[in-house]
């Protein structure tokens, strides 16, 4: 099948075969990293602009490496060093960068829906690298790649996503992806971090971690942002760990072949115990590695590199 989208603004709306195409392409991209010369000319002379309006180390460097491995030219633009700090609007920023003839924007921004906003002002493709609490599609795709490597397929997989569900873009993208691919998703966290109506996205919701984790094939822990506690969303980090921290003890309740995931950065001793993060069930560092492959695949497909990377 051929890729037919200009942008990747979210997972919502992608068909199963489109997700599979990205994952298959990503597997081929992974092979590039094993070569002595870790670079292909697929996106030579394409200009990719990384627009980061929010701090990010992992996602940003992952995208940058992906762009470089595909031989794209890159421009990094961060809010703190740009005209944004002088009060320029997002649309004006785009209109300016647009005249540098970019082929693609990779954008991270704190407001949901910014991709939709700027799509009216650019001829380039847009990859959403996280828009507020809305979507973070490449994260869900790299999670999916990791799950598929370990579990083979998604059909009937029992997945638990636990932590700060309310403020997470990762969870929304993962819900859409896993539902589309036929997995069963449960979300879990303290009631104050579980948004009302979350079940309308097609998941089960629970505040009881030990019940929720029972028999799960995949356990995905989300980062607890430390400022949530000071805003009164839960009483203390210690209490959080006691009720929702993923310990070895609790992990025993899951399926015996469970895998443990985390989009990072982790708070050890808050949402996850070190023994689990570094333990035999953890695939957390595989996720990081797959991030580069998935982002290569997305850029490659969006920028018309064609279907088969092995030709390069």
């Amino acid at each position, binding site marked *: 099948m051929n890729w037919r989208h200009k942008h990747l603004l979210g997972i919502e709306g992608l068909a199963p075969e489109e997700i599979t195409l990205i994952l298959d392409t990503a597997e081929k991209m992974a092979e590039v990293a094993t070569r002595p010369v870790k670079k292909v000319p697929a996106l030579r002379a394409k200009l990719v602009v990384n627009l980061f309006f929010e701090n990010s180390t992992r996602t940003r460097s992952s995208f940058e490496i992906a762009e470089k491995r595909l031989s794209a030219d890159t421009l990094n633009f961060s809010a703190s060093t740009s005209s944004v700090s002088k009060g320029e*609007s997002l649309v004006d920023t785009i209109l300016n960068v647009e005249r540098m003839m970019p082929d693609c924007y990779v954008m991270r921004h704190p407001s949901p829906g910014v991709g939709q906003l700027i799509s009216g002002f650019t001829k380039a493709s847009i990859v959403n690298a996280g828009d507020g609490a809305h979507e973070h599609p490449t994260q869900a795709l790299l999670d999916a790649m990791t799950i598929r490597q370990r579990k083979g397929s998604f059909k009937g997989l029992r997945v638990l996503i636990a932590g700060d569900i309310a403020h997470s873009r990762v969870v929304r993208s993962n819900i859409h992806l896993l539902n589309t691919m036929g997995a069963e998703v449960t979300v879990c966290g303290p009631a104050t971090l579980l*948004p009302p109506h979350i079940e309308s996205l097609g998941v089960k919701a629970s505040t009881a971690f030990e019940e929720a984790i029972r028999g799960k094939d995949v356990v995905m822990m989300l980062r607890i942002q430390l400022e949530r506690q000071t805003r009164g969303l839960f009483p203390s980090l210690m209490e959080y760990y006691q009720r929702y921290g993923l310990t070895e003890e609790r992990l025993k309740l899951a399926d015996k072949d469970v895998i443990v995931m985390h989009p990072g950065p982790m708070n050890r001793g808050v949402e996850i115990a070190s023994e689990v993060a570094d333990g035999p069930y953890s695939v957390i560092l595989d996720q990081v590695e797959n991030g580069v492959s998935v982002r290569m695949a997305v850029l490659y497909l969006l920028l018309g590199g064609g279907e088969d990377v092995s030709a390069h």
Partner: protein
Amino acid sequence: MYLLIKNGRVVDPSSGTDETLDVLIKDGRVEAVDKKLEAKGAEILDATGLIVAPGFIDMHVHLREPGYERKETIATGLAAALAGGFTGVCCMPNTDPVNDSASVTRFILDRAKAASPVHVYPIGAITKESKGEELAPYAELREAGARALSDDGKPVVKASVMRRAMEYAGSLGLLVIDHCEDTDLAGEGSMHEGTVSVRLGLKGIPAEAEIIPIRRDISLARLTGQRVHIAHVSTRLGVEAIRAAKKKRLPVSAEATPHHFTLTDEAVLGFDTNAKMNPPLRGKDDVEAVIEGLADGTLDAIVTDHAPHAYEEKMVEFDRAPNGIIGLQTAVPLALDRLVKTDRISLKRMVDAFSCAPARLLGLTDKGRIAPGAEADFTLFSLRKQTCLKAEDIQSLSKNTPFLGMKLKGAVVAVVIAGRVYPAR
């Protein structure tokens, strides 16, 4: 100076009239309403096939001047009102400076008079600078021409202040209009809290942020015995609380906007900032309740909450965009298309909500009716003609509306103000 409106279907809920009649106007007042009237030398307005209603009054408009002339001026706002079929508007005091003094009220009235035939009824602030602390000088405001009081855009947070405002304003016969919002509960929300907000990752404003202060205001109406008018009701439980209060004969009245009886939170799905308002677009069941409330009169008036914002202010990230849309030129067609054509409310109730109820609430005894002696303000509209608003038709300085290009059955054809005819553009 005689004007004779011939063969119109005169709909006047204040007298129960609904039949084809002629209306004779002399020197700005109604002289006679009857079949087959004649008047030598009179200007004739043929209203065959049209509804002739008492002039529509929009109780909730932001004219933005003074202070925000980039969004709207008194002149452009009133041009929009005229084009939309309104013979009068109330303008909210959240200007810069806030209308909490006779001088601002007089400035607005002077500007309005120079710019447009549309009557303007300024609304003064409930508290000085709308800060929610000290009462504004109500007697002075009334003397200068203010017809009601509101801190619209903000709630009156303190119950003690609201109580005193209702007591003091009530003794002067000024209507107190409250923007009911628990801003603490609403938090940083930028849309209705529901299945759409959870999908989009936008922070939600729960319905209870409106319901809790509505219930407080109803309690204060009981305590003080004075009327409170609830602005832009958007929730089912809000409608139900008001309905129950009215059943107990408490002095509570209320209003609703066309966008709250037309659109749901699903309008936000594409992150269109013209779907962002406060109170936010709610769920289907809330829209249904607003329509039911308008039908049975629980919600007395239809108002636009006309809120112009400049292009660059709305062309930003959804959660950073200002609240509100313009509404003066779409309100009547939306009500005709979505409420009357569909038989959700009667034509009579629609005219009542646009004309008689606002006149009643504002104490405008010579308005809101078509009877000898009443002021000759009328709105003439067609049930058959179609409205399709295009950007170039917009009279407002700002074009922030989600209703552009929507085909609506029903159209304003002309307004008459003080006996003079102004055909709709």
